[in-house]
């Protein structure tokens, strides 16, 4: 039978992806019989649920506007660079020799 110390160290695994593993099954078995560990697991779940329930602000309009100003400048300069390689080759004919 697993002890509380071990359960404490691995209890998170029983919230995660390895639910079917022998270790998780042993944790589950322990938790069914141990009210303290059951309380601990329940409080961990509530902690996570609380953080999931905290509302997060949506993107502010000004941040959206600033972002698209930056993106427009980036895409415009990339488009310009695509149109200009011949000019720069004339100015610097040695550039592509390496």
């Amino acid at each position: 039978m697993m002890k509380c110390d071990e359960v404490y160290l691995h209890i998170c695994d029983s919230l995660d992806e390895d639910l079917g593993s022998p270790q998780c099954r042993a944790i589950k078995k322990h938790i069914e019989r141990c009210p303290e560990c059951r309380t601990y697991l329940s409080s961990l779940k509530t902690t996570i649920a609380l953080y999931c329930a905290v509302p997060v602000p949506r993107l502010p309009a000004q941040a959206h506007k600033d972002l698209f100003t930056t993106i427009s400048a980036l895409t415009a300069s990339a488009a310009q660079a695509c149109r200009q390689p011949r000019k720069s080759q004339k100015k610097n004919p040695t550039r592509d020799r390496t």
Partner: protein
Amino acid sequence: MRTRSPRNLPDDELIRVARDGDNPAFTELVRRYEDTVYRFSYKICRDPAKAAETLQDTFVNVFRKLRTFDGKSKFSTWLYTIVTNNCLMKRRKRKGELLEESLEAYDHPQHQQTIGHRSQPLSMHETPADLVIGKELREVLDRAITRLPEDYRVVFVMRDIEGQSNGETARALGLSVEATKSRLRRARAFLREQLDPYVHTPARIA
């Protein structure tokens, strides 16, 4: 043949077209993901101005590096990596933020000893799904997560709030799965302890 508008392209095709240097496709990609990136940044930085700055930096980096995205991981995982790097580069030690080493104490069960022996916890009658976060509780939640070192906060946000797997989180952060699990365990234990009066519910007898 008529070209499809970027707006009508599914994500994977939009990414492919944007990667090939199509600027309207890139702009559409930004439009689709800007809210996700801002909200994720906010959850890590906990500051609207920093989140907006990270949003800008992230898409500038995406524009420059999109050609290197090989499609082997999910696009969102790749984005999370860039956001996280930008957030972590901006970090400065906040007042009250814990040292990383102090989180190691949460590997030991003495933190569990308080459980079940509290005098009278504040009761929570709601089930987690019905939770309405009041102002006071919100401040407590915010204070607690702000004290977590960002390296730990990122893992908690990616795993428990964004729902990424251990593998995806590890890949995005350049950690091993074991290191990811260890940070997650400590972060959860720390936050649970900080919220103890709010999350302590009597054990239910099955």
